[in-house]
């Protein structure tokens, strides 16, 4: 019994890992298609139907390129940097709940890599480690542009982590739990009109999404690789697949940030009328309770991925629309606007909870 559950769980973990990589792969394709769409071009359409084999062609190109080590580089750390960037990017998708649960007889399979009761802090901790890959790679390159990029990345990540954490604290005050599964389940109560967290935390969400852009080094905050000032920033000296790993890690980070946002603020795997649908499938269509639950759970997975894809599209939309910030503007935005706003948001949330405008959370599950 336990062994069977463990087997299912390891399958889920493998699928989560594979899906993270697959989505990151096709993000490279989506980025080009969206860029082409926004700039009124055709975009990649040569490799395969609609250019769908483009990521494979890119991978072949990257693998067959010359691997280059700059003179005076710290060789071990030069290799270690991109690996670390990739590992830290992939680690955080482990705790994200992609669906409620499937039930086969007595076996219950939770559609989540692992459930830990400090899930949100875990994601936050992994995000704060993400900067090491960039810093180590940039320093080990023995190039002043790389070093400047690495140092920019470090200070930017530290600055925006603060505002991000403070924005999350407001959510925690409402949820009373650090577990991402609990936070998801709280956003939808059976038989009641219930809102997602975005309605209760609009300010917190805006702060969070701005910080997510900064943490993933996406435009308008891609100062660490600002090519007009720093050639290519921390990956100036990288070539071949090591460069590919850095680019890939960025897309995995975008995927994870989108997943975290849809789980915390947009109800995760909840979708409107899910309990009514389950009831209807059970009573009117004559399905067993388990089968109805499984169908609703699969629709939940579809809904969470729809939200994730929407956010990924938003990331790309912003990238091809907004110009880059100047570095002092970036720092001023982080320290003097976002952090005070986040503290104000905490006070506001506290006030709304004590006055009872935000209702108390029910542990209904």
């Amino acid at each position, binding site marked *: 019994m336990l062994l069977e559950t463990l087997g299912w769980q390891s399958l889920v973990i493998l699928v989560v890992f594979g899906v993270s990589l697959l989505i990151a792969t096709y993000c490279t394709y989506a980025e080009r298609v969206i860029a082409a769409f926004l700039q009124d071009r055709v975009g990649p359409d040569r490799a395969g139907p609609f250019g769908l084999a483009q990521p494979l062609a890119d991978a072949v190109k990257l693998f067959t390129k010359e691997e280059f080590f700059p003179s005076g580089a710290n060789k071990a*750390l030069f290799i270690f940097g991109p690996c670390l960037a990739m590992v830290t990017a992939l680690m955080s998708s482990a705790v994200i709940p992609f669906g409620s649960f499937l039930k086969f007889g007595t076996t219950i399979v939770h559609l989540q890599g692992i459930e830990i009761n400090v899930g949100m802090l875990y994601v936050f901790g992994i995000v*704060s480690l993400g900067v*090491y890959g960039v810093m180590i790679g940039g320093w080990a390159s023995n190039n002043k542009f790389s070093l400047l990029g*690495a140092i920019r990345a470090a200070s930017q990540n*530290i600055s925006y982590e603060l505002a991000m954490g403070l924005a999350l604290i407001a959510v925690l005050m409402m949820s009373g739990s650090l577990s991402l599964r609990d936070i998801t389940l709280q956003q939808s109560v059976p038989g009641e009109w219930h809102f997602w967290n975005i309605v209760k935390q609009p300010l917190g969400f805006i702060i969070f999404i701005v910080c997510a852009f900064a943490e993933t080094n996406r435009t308008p905050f891609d100062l660490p690789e600002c090519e007009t000032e720093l050639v290519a920033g921390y990956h100036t000296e990288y070539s071949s697949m090591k460069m590919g790993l850095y680019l890939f890690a960025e897309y995995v980070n975008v995927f994870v940030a989108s997943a975290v946002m849809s789980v915390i603020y947009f109800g995760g795997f909840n979708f409107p009328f899910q309990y009514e649908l389950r009831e209807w499938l059970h009573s009117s269509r004559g399905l067993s309770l388990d089968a109805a639950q499984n169908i609703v759970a699969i629709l939940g997975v579809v809904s969470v991925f729809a939200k994730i894809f929407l956010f990924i599209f938003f990331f790309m939309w912003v990238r091809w629309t907004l110009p880059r910030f100047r570095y002092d503007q970036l720092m001023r935005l982080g320290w003097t606007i976002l952090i005070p706003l986040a503290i104000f948001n905490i006070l506001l949330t506290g006030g709304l909870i004590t006055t009872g405008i935000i209702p108390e959370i029910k542990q209904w599950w």
Partner: protein
Amino acid sequence: MSLFLFLSFVALLSALGVVLAKNPVHSVLFLILTFFTLSAHYLLLNAQFLAVVNIIVYAGAIMVLFLFVIMFLNLNEDTEPHKPALAKIAATIAGGSLLLIMVAALRNVHPAGYDPATFDSQIGMVDRLGMVLFKQYSLPFELASILLLAAMVGSVMLGKRETGERNF
């Protein structure tokens, strides 16, 4: 038990690496590894909150600043100043006496162990920790938070732009 031994082995090895590495950047990376093994020890003790907070605060923030400063200073073996012999001898004596005191203090300690009947496996969980912090130790907790607030205000004051100063 074997996991504990393995983690302790890695922890000691990486702690030795911090001291013995010639390159300061390597030292910092070994120190980060040490923090990770410490977090793993907390996990073995079922203190998940402490484990993750240790990673966020030490590995995620403080060590990034360490690395930041060391990368800026561009320290390496060639530029390292030669330390006088007296300083080396003094450091050895100081470190050795600290070791001696710790061994002497811990020599006769018997680990208390735990009673399975009364042991609470949930003691390290975040809700339990919050209850203890905010009920039993609320005054020290608030004092510590005022201290941190004062430090934060101080750093903001230091970083504040002087009147008439323009960077751009």
